[in-house]
Every structure is written in structure tokens, then in C-alpha cells.
């Protein structure tokens, strides 16, 4: 490990995490109540009370939390989507705008028309909706191009899906707990959704809440849980999701070596540079898994393997339990939970924290010290990354 000047994020730690119960349908909950429950859970996990919170991120429910608990005035950002919210909260703490920030999220009761794909998967844009597009098709167009260009095989995609689903099957808290184990052949035998994605290559839909609490390191050291430090992060965007042709080769005018198929590369380079680490230093990969192929391209984008070699990289046990780079250890969106458009993003971070605490009930990576978390995907033209560490150095 090389030394580098201490980045301001190192003054920030995740001190509380909480997942509510996750289920396909959470009877008796709506998005507001499940978000509120997640928020209180994360605050309690940190050993704090709502009155200790002086910053929040999120939408109207976050604002309601501030009002109902009468904790204003607080710092507030409208950011609510996973890792960007974490980075924004970390920046607020590092710059002194706030000292303890709550990031709540939750969704229930949003997906009722089951004959259609989930509402958050099919935006109404004029250039995609008339052509029957939804997220699986958007991401499939990118995966197909990788397969055509590099010879990536369906078996590699299926291995990713089986690995993550088996993590979920072993996880007592997963929506699909006990629903495995799956072999890659089981994935390939499931019905086709949007070629090359079979049903079991795709994320599920469910309901639930997830919240985090971040605090300044000076506070974090005295709280209930061992602090998990923010080591670095980054955000890569190519444009709005689900409006334009989703292509692997979409580039920008500034640097043609960065293309959408490897979106997140720049973000990962930034994140690693902030802490002087490299992919070799990562112990657990809590990567976002909207579709199996996305894991393959993330290993390439983040520098774990060379471009085009992700298909082989995932085949030999490297990403499974006991492997060098265990991936998405709670079962991710494929098996743990995918509650709408937000909680599942934050859940990558929550799981990374639990891994570094050594507190996972299943698929705990022994001695994990550095976790890499991600959000987004090439089909949506964005990827965010976050590096977490057991130590602040």
C-alpha cells in the first residue's frame, strides 16, 4: 500500500446501518412508514437518538422526519440515490456543514400492476417507450455488444447470477433466502426475458427500507459500533437514463478512452487515488447487480481485470465465497432485495459496512478490511463507486 496525503473523507465514518425486513410485499407498510422505520433503526444502531442528527439527505420523507422529530434546523440535501447521497453527506461532514447525517430510503406499495414490468423500469421517453424498452432490454443491448466484441459467453453471465443468488439463498434476511442453491445451468434453463438475460440473470422486485448514519470521525470513535471509514468515491455519468440508444461505445468529447461500457472507470480511478489503494487491496466487492453481465463489466471498468477479460475472470471461483474477490455477498438485487428505485442502492453500502464490521450472518469475508461498493449500470449510463475501510489510513 502506498501512502498518500490524507483525504478529507477520512474524517468521515459510517456509524449506523439498518435494513428493515425486506419482502416481496410488505403488508401494512407504505414508502413513508418503511423509510421512517429504517431511519430510526440506523440511528439506534449507532447508539444515537434523532436529536443527535444535524443533517439529512433525501426527498419529502427525509424532510418529514426532520419535522416530525423536530430536529430542525438541520443541513439537508435533496440527494437521495445511494452512493451520491453518501458522498454528499461525507462532504458535508468533512467541510463542517454537519456532523451526523442520516440517509434514509424505503419503498413499499409502488409496484401493483404485475402484468407490466415494474414502474421504475420503464420510463415514458419518446425514443424508448414506443419500442418496448425497459431496463432488462436496455442492459441487454450493452451485454450483447460485449459478447459480440469479446466473445463473452452466457456461461459467464450465468456464473455471476448463480454466485449472487447463492449468497442470497444463504442469507437469512434475504427475500429469496433458502431459494437456492443454483448452478449456472439453472440460470441458463430459466425462461428468457430479454436475450441474453434469462429470468434468473435479472434483479427481482421487492419492498423494504434501508438507512445509514454518517458521522465525523471524532464522534464516531465513541459510538456503539466500530466506525467504518469513507476512503474514497466517485460518480460517473454519461447522460439521462433510458432516453437514448444504450450503447457500449458511447463516449465523451473530452477523453475517448472512456466509454459507457466501462462507465465507472474514472470514478474508480478517483476513488482509489483518494486513498492510495488499488483493486488488489479490495477484500470484498459489493457491486450493484441489476443484471448478471453488469458484474463482469464492472470488474473490467474498475481495473480488477483487463478489458474483455471479465467473462473469464468470473468463471474460476474468484467472485464466490472464499474467492479472492467475493461479490455482492448478501444476494444483491437478485435475491436479497430490490425495493424500488433507491433502497437497493444504499444496501450495497450497508452490506459493505457490515462486512467490515465482521457482522454478516452469512458470507462473511474473514478479516475484510477494504470494501468496494457500487451503484448504477451501463444500461443506465452511470456508475458510482465508494471505498470503505476498517481503518482510516
Amino acid at each position, binding site marked *: 500500500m502506498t501512502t498518500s496525503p490524507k483525504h478529507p473523507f477520512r474524517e468521515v465514518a459510517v456509524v449506523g446501518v439498518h435494513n428493515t425486513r425486506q419482502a416481496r410485499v410488505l403488508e401494512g407498510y407504505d414508502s413513508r412508514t418503511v423509510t421512517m422505520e429504517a431511519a430510526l433503526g440506523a440511528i439506534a444502531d449507532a447508539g444515537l437518538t434523532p436529536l443527535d442528527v444535524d443533517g439529512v439527505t433525501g426527498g419529502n420523507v427525509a424532510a418529514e422526519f426532520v419535522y416530525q422529530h423536530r430536529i430542525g434546523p438541520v443541513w439537508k440535501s435533496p440527494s437521495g440515490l445511494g452512493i451520491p447521497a453518501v458522498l454528499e453527506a461525507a462532504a458535508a461532514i468533512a467541510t463542517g456543514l454537519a456532523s451526523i447525517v442520516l440517509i434514509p430510503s424505503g419503498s413499499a406499495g409502488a409496484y401493483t400492476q404485475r*402484468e*407490466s*414490468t415494474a414502474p421504475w423500469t*420503464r420510463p*415514458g421517453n*419518446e*425514443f*424508448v*417507450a*414506443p*419500442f*418496448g*424498452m*425497459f431496463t*432488462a*432490454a436496455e442492459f*441487454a*443491448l*450493452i451485454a*450483447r*455488444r460485449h459478447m*459480440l466484441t469479446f466473445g463473452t459467453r452466457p456461461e459467464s453471465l450465468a456464473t455471476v447470477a448463480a454466485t449472487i443468488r447463492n449468497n442470497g439463498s444463504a442469507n437469512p434476511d434475504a427475500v429469496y433466502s433458502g431459494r437456492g442453491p443454483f448452478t449456472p445451468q439453472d440460470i441458463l434453463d430459466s*425462461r*428468457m*426475458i*430479454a*436475450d*441474453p*438475460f434469462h*429470468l434468473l440473470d435479472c434483479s427481482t422486485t421487492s419492498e423494504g427500507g434501508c438507512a445509514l448514519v454518517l458521522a465525523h470521525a471524532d464522534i464516531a470513535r465513541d459510538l456503539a459500533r466500530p466506525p467504518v471509514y469513507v476512503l474514497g468515491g466517485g460518480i460517473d455519468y454519461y447522460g439521462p437514463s433510458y*432516453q*437514448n*440508444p*444504450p*450503447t*457500449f461505445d458511447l463516449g465523451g*468529447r473530452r477523453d475517448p478512452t472512456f466509454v459507457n461500457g466501462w462507465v465507472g472507470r474514472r470514478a474508480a480511478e478517483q476513488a482509489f487515488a483518494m486513498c492510495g489503494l488499488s483493486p488488489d487491496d479490495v477484500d470484498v466487492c459489493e457491486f450493484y447487480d441489476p443484471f448478471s453481465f453488469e458484474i463482469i463489466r464492472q470488474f473490467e471498468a474498475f481495473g480488477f481485470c483487463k478489458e474483455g477479460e471479465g467473462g473469464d475472470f468470473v468463471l474460476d471461483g474468484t467472485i464466490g465465497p472464499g474467492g479472492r474477490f467475493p461479490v455482492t455477498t448478501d444476494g444483491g438485487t437478485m435475491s436479497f432485495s430490490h425495493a424500488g428505485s433507491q433502497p437497493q442502492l444504499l444496501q450495497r453500502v450497508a452490506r459493505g459496512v457490515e462486512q467490515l464490521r465482521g457482522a454478516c450472518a452469512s458470507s462473511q469475508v474473514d478479516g475484510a478490511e477494504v470494501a468496494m461498493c457500487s451503484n448504477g449500470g451501463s444500461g443506465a449510463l452511470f456508475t458510482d463507486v465508494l471505498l470503505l475501510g476498517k481503518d482510516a489510513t
Partner: protein
Amino acid sequence: MTLLVPQTGAIPRPKPSSLSQPFWDGLGLHELRFQRCGACRGATHTPALVCSRCGSDELTWEVSTGRGIVYSWTTVWRPQTPEFVVPYVPIVVDVEEGWQMLSNLVGCDHDEVAPDLAVEVVFHHLDDGVTLPYFRPIGG
């Protein structure tokens, strides 16, 4: 094998913006339009205020040859909404003038799609005056 045909049901209709209206107006005239840059001659799609290649705002609408090759595809078996008949095949087309467009493949069996398949635009009139641009194999 299933012959791919245009959708005829109550699928989502495009809701053009002021920026994209010329694109949709052109389809009714059997013109596949794109924006050409006066500065670098590059093509831009989807409709924009500035050139995607050089950032110039000297964009004018031109009519495409409507020909291209298949850049990527997916065969969809679980429809976006029940109004879509499956299978249907979303494709990204590399259009001749150097732009990419999302559409659906029609006029062949679903398993005849292949990399670099040569395709041409075909205009499909929905019953409410909306025209969608699909693509079919050339000479297929």
C-alpha cells in the same frame, strides 16, 4: 421461429418535445430525419441543441438514407407492458450517416438477427396518426 411484425396494440405513443417535433413530423412524410452539423458535418441523434461531435449549434435537419447495420440487439420475451406482442427485437442501428438509433427489427424471423445485419427503415403508421420508424433486413 416467429415473424417479427410491427406492434399494433395500445403501445406507448411518443410525446414529442419542441426539440424532437421535426423528427416525428418527418416520419409522417416517410423521412427519417437527423441533425447535421454545419461546422464538422457530423450527425447528431437524439435531437439536441448542439452537435454531439463538436458542440457547435449550427444544426440543421437532414433526411437519412434510412440504411444501416445492426450494432446490437435483444430479443424480448417478457413485454414491457401487456400491449406488446412478443417476441419483439429492440435493436441499435448504426445508420449510414454516422449516428445510432434505437428501434425494433421487423420483417424477418426473430432468430435471423445477426451482427452487422444490413437493415433499412420502414415506416409504420399507427391508427392515431403516429408513425414509428422500424427497420427490416435489406433484401430480406
